[in-house]
């Protein structure tokens, strides 16, 4: 198996009159002679934060501080006028946005609101009965995986910012039923792997790739013999088949390296990627990696999880270190239902929402800065932001989703959709289709998620 598709798409993407890259860091790895032609490729980045947002209805009499004040068209001016709302952090990108309120997740969690929410967020699937609680899993694949498989024949580039010894770690991106994708938490490692996989440069690269083909042929042969065992259990057959499918011959590619300053930044967090102090730096570096992976043709889909499932980061705002974010989201000094109240927790939560959306804006900006003759990555694809929960009350309704990008013109943009209750499978159907995935009949994907859910897309999102 090869990854010709992604390589060809990248070539198509870059073929033509040359590439104008807005990000200086990207210029170094884009071939100067590339020329563009052919259909626009799709790209998608999913960024997920934890613990819900400060919104109403929520805790008691707290004011609404998240959503725009009015449904309908969004402009930079209208969003700036809503300066008291967290989404105003995205005002600069109003033309590209879809802010969507009213999305619910259909199913109950199973003993842990955070895990159950994360399980459903990108899958619209039920939550497993076994395992349960903080170990619960989704009973189906996630949208990022579905898109990546369809467009690139491989798994999404999965990244993670924060410590990996939390109560819940990876719990959002899935290959299929109970089949969790584990994201890379160390951006230096993620970058090193991308560079290593290309095998170096020039004649040395050719030797490496030839050798890999020889070894891969041998390994494929051994796996095929093992698969020939008629007494294999279905689980073993599935696992060995997955192994066989993962044996890839990487084509010779022209990917170079990121600029020295970025590489130095990546290296600086190596081994320290899980600390609170490095969190936002890691997140920003992962945005660079996401854009690098997309623009260089390594991946078509990126998934980024910010924080463990009950993200307990202590953010520093205006020089003051806040209590655990998870505690703030519950408004008490405690991870459960018991603890002393945190004074001003609602405002702290709002400040954290702003931090998160400011960083989503950073991602939008980086994608928008990659210019091609067909438009930016934001014109060709989209970045989707969501929170694992509606609010700190573990609500599965009014789960915030914000989409930035036109997806090759498929998405209508520049609007705040204040919808009556809609299940998240319809939003995911819309996004999967927007990324360029089609049904076997050539139509839109309208049946993603649990089969019990009503099919369909969200018409208001489609141009």
């Amino acid at each position, binding site marked *: 198996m090869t990854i010709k598709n992604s390589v060809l798409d990248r070539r198509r993407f870059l073929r033509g009159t040359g590439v104008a890259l807005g990000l200086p860091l990207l210029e170094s790895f884009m071939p100067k002679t590339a020329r563009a032609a052919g259909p626009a490729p799709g790209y998608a980045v999913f960024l997920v934060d934890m613990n819900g947002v400060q919104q109403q209805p929520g805790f008691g009499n707290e004011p609404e501080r998240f959503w725009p004040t009015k449904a309908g068209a969004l402009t930079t001016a209208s969003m700036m006028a809503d300066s008291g709302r967290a989404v105003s952090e995205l005002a600069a990108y109003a033309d590209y946005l879809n802010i969507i309120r009213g999305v619910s997740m259909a199913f109950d969690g199973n003993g842990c609101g955070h895990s159950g929410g994360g399980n459903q967020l990108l899958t619209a699937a039920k939550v497993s009965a076994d395992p349960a609680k903080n*170990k619960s899993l989704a009973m189906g694949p996630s949208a990022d995986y579905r898109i990546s498989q369809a467009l690139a024949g491989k798994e999404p580039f999965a990244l993670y910012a924060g410590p990996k010894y939390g109560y819940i770690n990876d719990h959002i991106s899935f290959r299929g039923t109970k089949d969790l994708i584990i994201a890379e938490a160390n951006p230096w490692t993620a970058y090193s792997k991308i560079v290593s996989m290309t095998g170096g440069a020039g004649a040395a690269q050719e030797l490496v790739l030839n050798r890999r083909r*020889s070894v891969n042929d041998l390994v494929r042969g051994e796996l095929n013999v093992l698969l020939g065992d008629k007494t294999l*259990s279905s689980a073993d057959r599935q696992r060995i088949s997955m192994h066989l499918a993962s044996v890839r011959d990487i084509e010779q590619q022209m990917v170079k390296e990121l600029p020295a300053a970025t590489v130095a930044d990546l290296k600086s967090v190596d081994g320290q990627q899980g600390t609170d102090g490095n969190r936002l730096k890691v997140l920003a570096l992962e945005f660079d990696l996401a854009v690098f992976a997309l623009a260089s043709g390594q991946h078509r889909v990126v998934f980024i999880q910010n924080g463990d499932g009950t993200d307990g980061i202590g953010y520093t705002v205006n020089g003051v270190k806040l209590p655990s974010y998870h505690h703030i989201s519950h408004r008490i000094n405690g991870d459960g239902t018991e603890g002393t109240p945190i004074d001003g927790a609602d405002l702290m939560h709002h400040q954290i929402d702003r931090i998160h959306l400011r960083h989503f804006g950073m991602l939008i900006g980086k994608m928008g800065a990659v210019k091609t003759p067909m438009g930016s990555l934001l014109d060709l694809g989209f970045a989707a932001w969501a929170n694992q929960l509606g609010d700190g009350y573990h609500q599965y309704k009014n789960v915030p989703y914000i989409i930035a990008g036109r997806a090759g013109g498929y998405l209508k943009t520049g609007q705040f959709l204040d919808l009556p209750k809609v299940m998240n499978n319809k939003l995911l159907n819309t996004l999967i289709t927007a990324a360029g995935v089609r049904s076997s009949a050539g139509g839109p994907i309208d049946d993603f998620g649990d089969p019990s859910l009503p099919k369909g897309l969200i018409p208001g999102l489609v141009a």
Partner: protein
Amino acid sequence: MKHANVSLLVLGWLGSACTGSVGLGDSPEADDGGSTGQGGTGSGARGGASSGGAPSDGADAVVATSKFARLSHKQWENTTRDLLGLPKAPGLTSTFTGDASHGRFDNAGGALQVTDGLFNDYQIASEALAAKVSSDATLLAKLKPSGATGAVQPKPFIEAFGRRAFRRPLTTEEVDRYAALFAKGSALYGAGDASVLGMRAVIEAMLQSPHFLYRIEVGQTNKVVDGKVPLTGWEMASRISYGLANTMPDSELLAAAADGKLQGNVADVRAEVRRHATRLLSSTGGKDAINDFYTQLLRLYTYDGIDKDAAKVPEFVAGIGADMRQETLRFTSEIVSQATGSQADLLTAPFTFVNQRLAKVYGLSGTFTDEFKKVDLDAKQRSGLLTQPGFLASNAHRTEIDSIHRGVFVHVNVMCTNLPPPAKNVPPVPPTGGKTNRERVTAHTGPGTCGGPCHGTLINPAGFAFEKFDAIGKYRTLDNGAAIDDSGSLEIDGVERSWKSSVEFVALLAKSQSVHQCLTGAWLEYLFGRRPEEADAFLVNRVANASLSQSQAIKESMLELVTSEAFMFRAAL
């Protein structure tokens, strides 16, 4: 396949909305009724194969398992170290794609996958290791067939190295395939010594082979009896070695397999398995594996992240979490290494190991340095694992204790109670009064509140037993100026038991059948590399009963498990 979420014992309804059943461990389902298998003290009744779906009746059962147990990342590290003769583990898995959790331990090989990302990781790591070995004359010399001089001949090298890499002799076809690759060495790498480049190519490929990455078990399929397939001697060697030492079989095990000592007459094989298992338990690899077991079981890897407000918890200093982890590992190692060290000793031994930082937490007088030393503790205050600062501080907030999480830990990790999920969307109600932590927690979650059935009767009592240990585990007698009450009662093994102190509480746990079943089930999970099944109930009960009634040493329990038919056979599919 049904995991052991049907209880071995059931405590029965303890409230209108909360049932705490006791299982073999890691049993996420809340409650599925039924009780079973209180097996006898049997000394070895042996039974047939099981699909894992039903408890065995009066005999050890052989559970259907995967034929392809993938090496865990730790096993990959240890195996490459031993296979290539490296002075230490290469450390490359720190950048490998992580594995999803499949139980309490990371070595559930039958569930571990090779994903896109991990395939790439294996590829890059294999290339790096092959390059390292082929450029180091000392390492290369170790890999040459014994007695070989001059340029390495392909087939002798492939047969010798392959037998260790695949943990079995290669077939003629396999030798031929790798010999063809060996012959292409110069073409694949460019200039250099052709025989060295051939070795490099073979090493690089074998490290990516499924026969290296998986422990493949097909058994002696021509000798199936009563649904049980005897393992081949080579497969048995790997089971023993990976179970007890987390690495490939050493030369003695490989020799035993080659000599046919690990297959054939069951009694003879059992004796041979016991001999090697005993040997490995005292080896460096065996000791590392025991540390690995307790690190995962007790979640010691979280201790490094322990963080306290130093202004209010003056004993907290940076790095003390790592000290706490060291303390617990030294303690568990000491217990397990003793000829009589038992599960009960883990819970009751009144000694520990401290350095100068931990000595302050314990309030010990005397001279202490950075070095750990064994100390006796006040037996009225401290008793085993659950009164050590690591458990107490990791289940506490930055300034306050966390009785609920302490109670949950004891139930889940020590008693294997299948706590039901908490109610959905419980609003976080601020405390409404009470001077002490116990009073506040009781007011919110105790009897008479909506959380009463679970917290009031199960979780809180177990947590309150440790009320005299503050947020870092220091002993105290007052909370907010009021005397602390750490007494309580809890239904243990179906009988309401009372205590007046933490020491009395852990003493009750040390005498609890469900605790011994829980800890024995954990050892089964680790040694067998799979989650316990219902069909394992008889075996677990058999070993747990000896642990409880005879104070059987932990080492002996481990040997009982690995010499059972459940370990020595595989089920026919």
